[in-house]
């Protein structure tokens, strides 16, 4: 099919948990291609099947249907201990009866490496995660962040081909979490190991991932770079889940290449971009438009007397949030619009009740397929 060799290639993975009260479809025909050397992020709300997908790759769960290839080779018949894939567990799962050093050395001892080589690797791993002075401690004597580093070092020690990380930062406080994001990213670049990280935190996904797969209800909604996911969401779920956005109901009047001329509910007109699954939309179709708050331009109305584009509205609320100000603007539509304006610009402040004119580029406004 493809000539490119992927680190992980999931083909139509389906996983059904048989439960007493009924079957749970945790993964529904998921296909995924993770490149070698990539920092890949699985992003989605709680219960969407992220952990299940990781567990399938690690070998803890048998697939109900589908296949998983690792560098082109089928691994479905291999038990976890024969897969060159290591996991950093959400709850770390460090061995409580072993010191930090012994925890890190565990995989190397299992692989029957030479004791001298093991000692060297452990030392290197301890330095890598800045834990050298804790080598002789037991996990119960470490803080959450320290345990997290040990779990990371333990999983990296045998230099696996793929490292799976299940919400590794969720137990840390905000400061530490942000510092660890950078460290993880750096670690991935230094080691050249393919990282697959699971998170439900969009900031984490956007700041670390080379590519992101957005999941919902056991299916992948969209895969792409952080910019693609943010700027060109393919459907309502992705647009809503990643960042803030405004949804506008509209009807397509005409289509020109990949730009659609749309009429909003109140009769105002705007251009919007048609791409991906939305490209099949035709004039007359009722569609949903998505515009990010920071892509909206707001001007006092009297500055543009009778200007053709621009949608009339009035400010109903304004919230100062430091770098920006959020304005809630009532249009002739059902839901008010949220606009986000930077405070550093010398742009005028708008008062509540002020009449304004709102506009945005066709490129910043996406037609969503559903």
């Amino acid at each position: 099919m493809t000539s490119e060799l992927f680190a992980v290639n999931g083909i139509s993975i389906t996983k059904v948990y048989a439960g007493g009260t009924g079957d749970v479809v945790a993964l529904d025909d998921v296909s995924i291609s993770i490149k070698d050397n990539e920092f890949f992020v699985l992003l989605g709300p709680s219960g969407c099947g992220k952990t299940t997908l990781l567990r399938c790759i690690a070998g803890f769960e048998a697939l109900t249907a589908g296949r998983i290839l690792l560098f082109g080779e089928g691994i479905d018949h291999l038990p976890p201990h024969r897969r060159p894939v290591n996991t950093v567990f959400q709850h770390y799962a460090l061995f409580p009866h072993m010191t930090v050093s012994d925890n890190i050395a565990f995989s190397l001892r299992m692989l029957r490496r030479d004791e001298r080589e093991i000692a060297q690797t452990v030392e290197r791993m301890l330095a890598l995660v800045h834990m050298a002075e804790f080598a002789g401690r037991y996990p119960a004597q470490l803080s959450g962040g320290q345990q997290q580093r040990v779990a990371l070092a333990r999983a990296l020690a045998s230099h696996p081909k793929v490292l799976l990380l299940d919400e590794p930062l969720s137990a840390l406080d905000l400061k530490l979490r942000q510092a660890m994001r950078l460290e993880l990213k750096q670690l991935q670049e230094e080691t050249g190991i393919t990282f697959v990280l699971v998170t439900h935190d969009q900031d984490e996904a956007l700041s670390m991932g080379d590519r992101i797969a957005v999941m919902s209800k056991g299916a992948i909604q969209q895969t792409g770079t952080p910019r693609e996911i943010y700027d060109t969401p393919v459907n309502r779920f992705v647009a809503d889940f990643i960042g803030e956005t405004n949804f506008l109901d509209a009807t397509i009047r005409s289509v020109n290449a990949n730009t659609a001329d749309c009429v909003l509910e109140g009769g105002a007109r705007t251009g919007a971009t048609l791409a991906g699954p939305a490209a099949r939309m035709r004039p007359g179709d009722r569609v949903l438009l998505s515009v990010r708050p920071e892509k909206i331009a707001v001007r006092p109305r009297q500055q543009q007397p009778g200007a053709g584009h621009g949608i009339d509205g009035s400010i109903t609320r304004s919230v100062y949030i430091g770098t920006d100000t959020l304005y809630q603007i009532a249009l002739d539509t059902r839901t008010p619009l949220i606009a986000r304006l930077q405070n550093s610009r010398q742009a005028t402040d708008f008062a509540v009740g002020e009449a304004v004119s709102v506009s945005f580029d066709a490129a910043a406004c996406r037609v969503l397929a559903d």
Partner: protein
Amino acid sequence: MPSPATPPPRAASEHARARRRLKARALLLSPALLVICGLLVLPLCIIVVYSFLTPGTYGGVVWRFSTESYVQFLFERDLFDDTLAFSPAYLQIYWRSFIQALVATTACFLIGFPTAYYIATLPERKKYMWVLLITVPYWINLLIRTIAMLFLIRNEGPLNHALLFAGLVDAPLKIAYTNIGVGIGLIYTYLPFMVLPLYAAIERFDFRLVEAASDLYARRWTILRRVILPLAMPGVVAGSLLVFIPSLGAFIAPDLLGGGKNLMIGNLIALQFQGSRNWPFGSAAAVILMTIVLCALLVYVRQQSKARLRQLR
């Protein structure tokens, strides 16, 4: 009169509270203390005292101090010239009991561990039924159970009948009245004492560690040896002690299933009070057994607390 606004000195009030708490705790403890003192410490003292007295002709003791019982344990006194010759007869009984208890403990562990593991990994609702089933033998008197076992394993019993019928053996297997019979009896009697502590330990075990180990290239047996067993160790130790110590002094199983041929410590002691009527010697034998067990326990506890202290908290 001091002004009522003056608060009482803090140290004093805290001291009083601590004393009150201590008193309350002593009150809670007192029934147990009474039972232990009355039924354990007092008889123990009597036994220690008796072991240093002279045997009466028809049982009982004569109140004359003597270390003869302890001498008798290791040496044989020549009837004519009163010289002492080393005699390992009693040591052999102790050694045999030790081996029997060790074998029984090992066997209980080998049978009990898979059982406990199986129960601990069952769904919550089923666990309790199984734990209850483990205790079923205790609903029946030990003597009855042991006699029933004797009927099962004796030459004309159903076990040998079945084996003969299946053509697996030509003559009945001699199990009853042998060391093997005693061993089977000990295992049967004490197995639940092994299973329950093991179950409690494995129940508490975090099975995510098994996944972590297998993720890090450990095979099943290695996981058992390097992750599950070390973490279930408190249960293994508790179970082993609960089987080993009573096995060492067991009386009913060796008496009924061993036919009293190969004496174990329990039989030896019982014999001194019933047949030979040498109370001081029986007491000495009991004191020696207790001392050995206590010393072994002390050494063990010392070692463990040193190792554990560093590990968990």
